């Protein structure tokens, strides 16, 4: 207690405040952070923040209050509280991402929903004759599987065609990606077709790479692409997001991945146009026609509480040095440091250079593990989860004909990568557990073919 007093610069503490209660102006200590994430399962090396994110107890408490408010008197909440609360969240986000107008910012469940909204619109343009059959949608081959299915459901079904650009991986520079993309756009325009939509990930999921999204959007504008949709599921809380600078028509990012919100909430930015934008939420309510932001604010009776806690999240991140920027920087630096530790220990490589990583890094797995298929990757992942209490996604890199691939220290070809994430709750031991699990498998001459069943 005395130590606290001295730190507060006041030896004679007339303030009878409970010394255990942290001042809001003090930053969170390591033990505060552990307490905020005490609900995480102990004993698990949870190095996969990228998939499902995390939510600190202070924010969960704020969410509970919103939920209770609804349960207590739902009509009053609906008429007097909900819209104001949603607008407060949207306003915070709008300023974070440098949008011109809060009207450009809608809240939806997740990036998957935003993709459906964009692709439904594109589909309507085909159906209603605005786009010609065979006009194209261009995307990277590693675009999220849900997005690809959404294209099938809404675009291919009505006669649109697709061009997939293979993302070079492992990758060493932005130029590799930009050239590949330019080639893809050329293909999309071949035979007099028009490229109606380009889908660009800000941060690809698997394999995980920070993409040169500004350059790619510029290329799209140069090459006459009609609209650009940036799928930035991982972006906010990972990397600085300035939607004006990026210049896309549509931009979506999940807040429950890297921005400490509970499942689920995403913001969906639609750049204002001179004419009315024909985007609609697919779940149509009485707000239909009042603009996407208003439509999305009511899609029937739901639990909207996860969309209401954004101001509380801002309070939480302010308790870190440098706020969200500080968090992003430290996550990146630690992830890279841990990534280098692992690839040195395993004699492998990083999937991309540090400047093309965020709080996630791809690290090559030793060739001796013999990951030869997607199924092997899943098997290895399950083994790690069940037998080693390590949660980490595994990526199988299928080499194409003629590709040489990268070799590890045993001169075997690296066919698989793990994607490690680093968030504020992670500790060095988490990555050491992963390191040792893999090292031991190799030492025991285990391969994906002889892993014990889970």
């Amino acid at each position, binding site marked *: 207690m005395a130590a606290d007093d001295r730190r507060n610069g006041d030896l004679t503490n007339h303030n009878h405040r409970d010394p255990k209660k942290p001042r809001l102006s003090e930053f969170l200590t390591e033990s505060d952070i552990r307490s905020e994430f005490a609900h995480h399962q102990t004993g698990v090396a949870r190095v*996969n923040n990228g998939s499902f994110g995390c939510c600190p107890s202070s924010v969960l408490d704020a969410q509970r209050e919103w939920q209770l408010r609804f*349960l207590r*008197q739902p009509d009053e909440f609906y008429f007097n509280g909900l819209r104001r609360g949603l607008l407060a969240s949207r306003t915070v986000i709008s300023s974070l991402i440098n949008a011109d107008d809060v009207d450009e910012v809608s809240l939806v469940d997740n990036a*998957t929903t935003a993709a459906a909204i964009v692709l439904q619109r594109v589909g309507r343009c085909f159906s209603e004759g605005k786009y010609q059959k065979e006009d194209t949608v261009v995307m990277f081959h590693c675009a999220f599987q849900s997005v690809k299915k959404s294209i099938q459901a809404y675009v291919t079904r009505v006669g649109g065609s697709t061009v997939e650009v293979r993302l070079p991986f492992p990758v060493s520079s932005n130029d590799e990606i930009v050239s590949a993309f330019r080639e893809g756009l050329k293909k999309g325009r071949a035979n007099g077709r028009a490229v109606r939509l380009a889908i660009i990930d800000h941060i690809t999921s698997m394999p995980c790479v920070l993409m040169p999204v500004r350059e790619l959007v510029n290329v799209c504008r140069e090459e006459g692409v009609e609209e650009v949709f940036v799928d930035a599921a991982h972006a906010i809380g990972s990397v600085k997001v300035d939607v004006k600078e990026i210049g896309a028509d549509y931009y979506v990012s999940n807040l429950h991945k890297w921005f400490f919100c509970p499942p689920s909430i995403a913001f969906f930015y639609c750049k204002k146009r001179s004419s009315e934008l024909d985007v609609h939420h697919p779940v*149509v309510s009485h707000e239909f026609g009042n603009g996407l932001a208003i439509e999305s604010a009511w899609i029937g009776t739901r639990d909207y509480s996860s969309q209401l806690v954004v101001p509380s999240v801002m309070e939480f991140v302010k308790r870190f040095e440098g706020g969200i920027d500080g968090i992003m920087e430290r996550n990146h630096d630690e992830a890279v440091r841990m990534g280098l530790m692992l690839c040195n220990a395993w004699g492998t490589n990083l999937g991309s250079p540090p400047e093309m990583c965020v709080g996630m890094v791809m690290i090559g797995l030793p060739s001796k593990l013999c990951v030869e298929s997607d199924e092997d990757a899943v098997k290895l992942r399950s083994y790690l989860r069940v037998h080693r209490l390590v949660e980490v996604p595994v990526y199988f890199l299928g080499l194409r004909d003629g590709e040489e691939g990268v070799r590890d220290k045993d001169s075997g070809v690296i066919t698989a990568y793990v994607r490690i994430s680093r968030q504020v709750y992670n500790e060095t031991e988490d990555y050491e557990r992963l390191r040792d699990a893999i090292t031991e498998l190799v030492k025991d001459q285990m391969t994906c073919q002889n892993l014990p069943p889970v």
Partner: protein
Amino acid sequence: MASLSPPEEAAASSYHHRRSKRYSSSTTNGVSAETVPDKRHKISLPPPPPSSSSSNFISLSEIEAEFSHHDPAFARINNGSFGCCPSSVVAVQRDWQLRFLRQPDRFFFDELKPNISASRAAIRRLINAEHEDEVSIVDNATTAAAIVLQQTAWAFREGRFDRGDAVVMLHYAFGSVKKSVEAYVSRSGGEVIEVQLPFPVISAEEIINRFRTGLELGKANGRRVRLALIDHVTSMPSVVIPIRELVKICREEGVDQVFVDAAHGIGCVDVDMKEIGADFYTSNLHKWFFAPPSVAFLYCRRSGGGNNLHHPVVSHEYGNGLAVESTWVGTRDYSAQLVVPSILEFVNRFEGGIDGIKKKNHESVVEMGEMLVKSWGTQLGCPPEMCASMVMVGLPVCLGVSSESDAVRLRNLLRERFCIEIPTYFRAPGEGETDSITGYVRISFQVYNKPEEYHRLRDAVNELVRDGFKCTSLTD
């Protein structure tokens, strides 16, 4: 409030399911409260509040405890709009939320799907559907409507339906559903026919006759009626529609598909899919079936072309059937969808289970409605047999409700001055009508309601009448 520290877990990861000996162990409607075959995935309910009652059934004070989170200042007689959720079920939901937060990957890979299946299995039995494939879980009836109407829109766009073919719906269909019809059907070339229904309603025959006329209009000039969209219980004004008869008429008249919007279905009226015979049927569970917001089912009869339906939020499950598609629409909080087996435990604490609750709600709401009618000198909006757990009650004419905005402002007044939560309805006078009742309230009755709440409403309105109150005096 559930603690945030990890729940106690035995080494073998098995959860002990505790059941109070006081819980009724009988089955209701053939549905046993024990629906999850694998106990490893079952979460135990928190201990029931202590009771001195020797009865096997839930006591009044236990009910009060279950709903103690409701605002005590309010006469909450509007269960119809947003429903309710007892604390035992809220607690189970919290458990599910914590399981995700604890280790989300494992939850996603190992626990989510089997437990959604358990909910779907429970619903299948409750609604007497033939097969689990026919039962999809979605957020709410609004989502279900988008799913069905999107399918209709595709048929128009892809030329399976001719431009101008009709979709027939009730004039009293829910506002969101009407907009959905506009967004999907009108936009893709379908013609929308609205069937005007009388209100107040004297008999089911009136509705049946008007509906027949509406269908004839739909078929005029050789058109086909591709979809009939019928409410099981209309929202505003609220009336139980004779849907079995209407579905039969649709079949007789060659309507392609029948979609029943039963937002107020399960826990309010009898929902037997085989008996009702519709192609699509949706109902919210968070209105009358004690679920937290939000969860609904969409039933799609196998033979009714159900393979064509897709969830509009497309995920990697696309093409695996609507039920499977709906189990994953991206990262979400699915906890409300996982508590259905726990709800069965709750309702089985009541005598007669959900049927007993329905019966008592109906009797009570009629009793309260008639009490109000007597005191105000007005009338009910329909005969007692055409209401379930909600009823429309006429407001005294002298209040002068002369527009929809009058009705809204009166509602606000009741909320703000009298702490009464009740939706109001403006019924425009018909041609030649003088001194007709133009304002109605819709009262609901659910297990937590008490006669005092309706007395408060009675007295508030009488006070307004005594004061010579007129709606024209209200400003926004």
